[in-house]
């Protein structure tokens, strides 16, 4: 499944005031992956430098891998229990896999959570979220 339209996501994230505060000084590449496709987000000095579809398995600062249904649950308008959070909920209870620089992910956990919140809002606005 497509997690988000890359162009819309980039413009939405860059316009999001909370993300811009939480992501200050951040340099990282995020790869959000399902078995068949990935969304690759490059962040430079706290701004989204690029956002595009790519193949899964490419090197990244932080990779999040989940099945399509897991992503659908995670990005639902009102997630079911434990899908509301990445590390504590989805990783511990729903089989999501997170790899890479955990220090970077921890330091920017708020920014990451905000990114997912914007993705969730985009899915709702396009009718993709249940």
């Amino acid at each position: 499944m497509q997690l988000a339209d890359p162009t819309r996501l980039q413009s939405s994230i860059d316009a999001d005031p909370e993300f811009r505060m939480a992501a200050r000084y951040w340099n990282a590449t995020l790869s959000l992956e399902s078995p068949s496709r990935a969304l690759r987000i490059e962040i430079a000095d706290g701004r989204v430098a690029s956002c595009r579809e790519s193949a899964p398995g490419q090197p990244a600062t932080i990779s999040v891998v989940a099945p399509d249904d897991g992503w659908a649950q995670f990005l639902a308008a009102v997630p079911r229990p434990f899908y509301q959070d990445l590390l504590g909920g989805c990783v511990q209870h729903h089989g999501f896999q997170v790899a890479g620089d955990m220090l970077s992910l921890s330091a920017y956990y708020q920014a990451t959570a905000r990114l997912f919140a914007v993705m969730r809002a985009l899915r709702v606005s396009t009718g993709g979220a249940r």
Partner: protein
Amino acid sequence: MARFDAATGRYVYLAIDGVEYRVYFEEAGAGIPLLLQHTAGADGRQWRHVLEDADVGRHFRMIAYDLPYHAKSVPPSAVEWWTEEYRLTRDFFMKVPVTLAAELALDRPVFMGCSIGGHLAADLACYHPGVFRAAISLEGSLCTPARRDLSFLHHPRISNEYRAGLMYGITAPQSPEAFRRETAWIYSQGAPGVFKGDLHYYNVDHDLTGIAATIDTTKTPLYVLTGEYDWSSTPTMGRALAAAVRGATFRAMPGLGHFPMCENPARFREYILPVLDEIRARP
């Protein structure tokens, strides 16, 4: 004329293991004493909505305290705390409400705590039978072993925003956004190392596996309530604690997370008022 909150605050000195602690507490209401214990790495502000609840205050004298090393209960001046890693132990943790109740001359108070406080409710019922009129365990369980490396909770390169963000993620998405944010805000203000140190009790020192059955609910009734969205001490784990204790009760709280009293106080009171009514009706 100024509009005042119902709670008033003051300090009391508690001597525990030969050390004097200056402990801050806020109180409201009158009647049966009700001690309120906050979660790990937080403080008594989490109870502000309950303290303001006139339906509770009509029958209960609520006392929400800051555990030593938390918020206004600054570290003891007689201890070189800066030379050692802060670590909350079960033994010390239990002594705080027991000593506080004795110093305030409370007559068999009710104890209600959340998360580490929920664990403590069960430990107090187990190790101090009859001292408390009843124990209410919010988000408590038999044990909660750590599921991942906790070093990032106290790391020079990671700010308090991490703890706040992580705790935001354990609230329920249905809870009011302002209160979810306030819950996280409190987590952004704890002293470095205190949250992680509290988790020593949460992850290691609290373990009632094989012991919970010794709790005598004729001396201290035990009520366990768990939020549906609590991925740390889950409803399944809360139900297991209650099942291990003869006479204990369990109730899941749909639409709530790990911080029921502060993330959604209006929803929480629907679950807690019947429990308090039942405790009040007991002889």
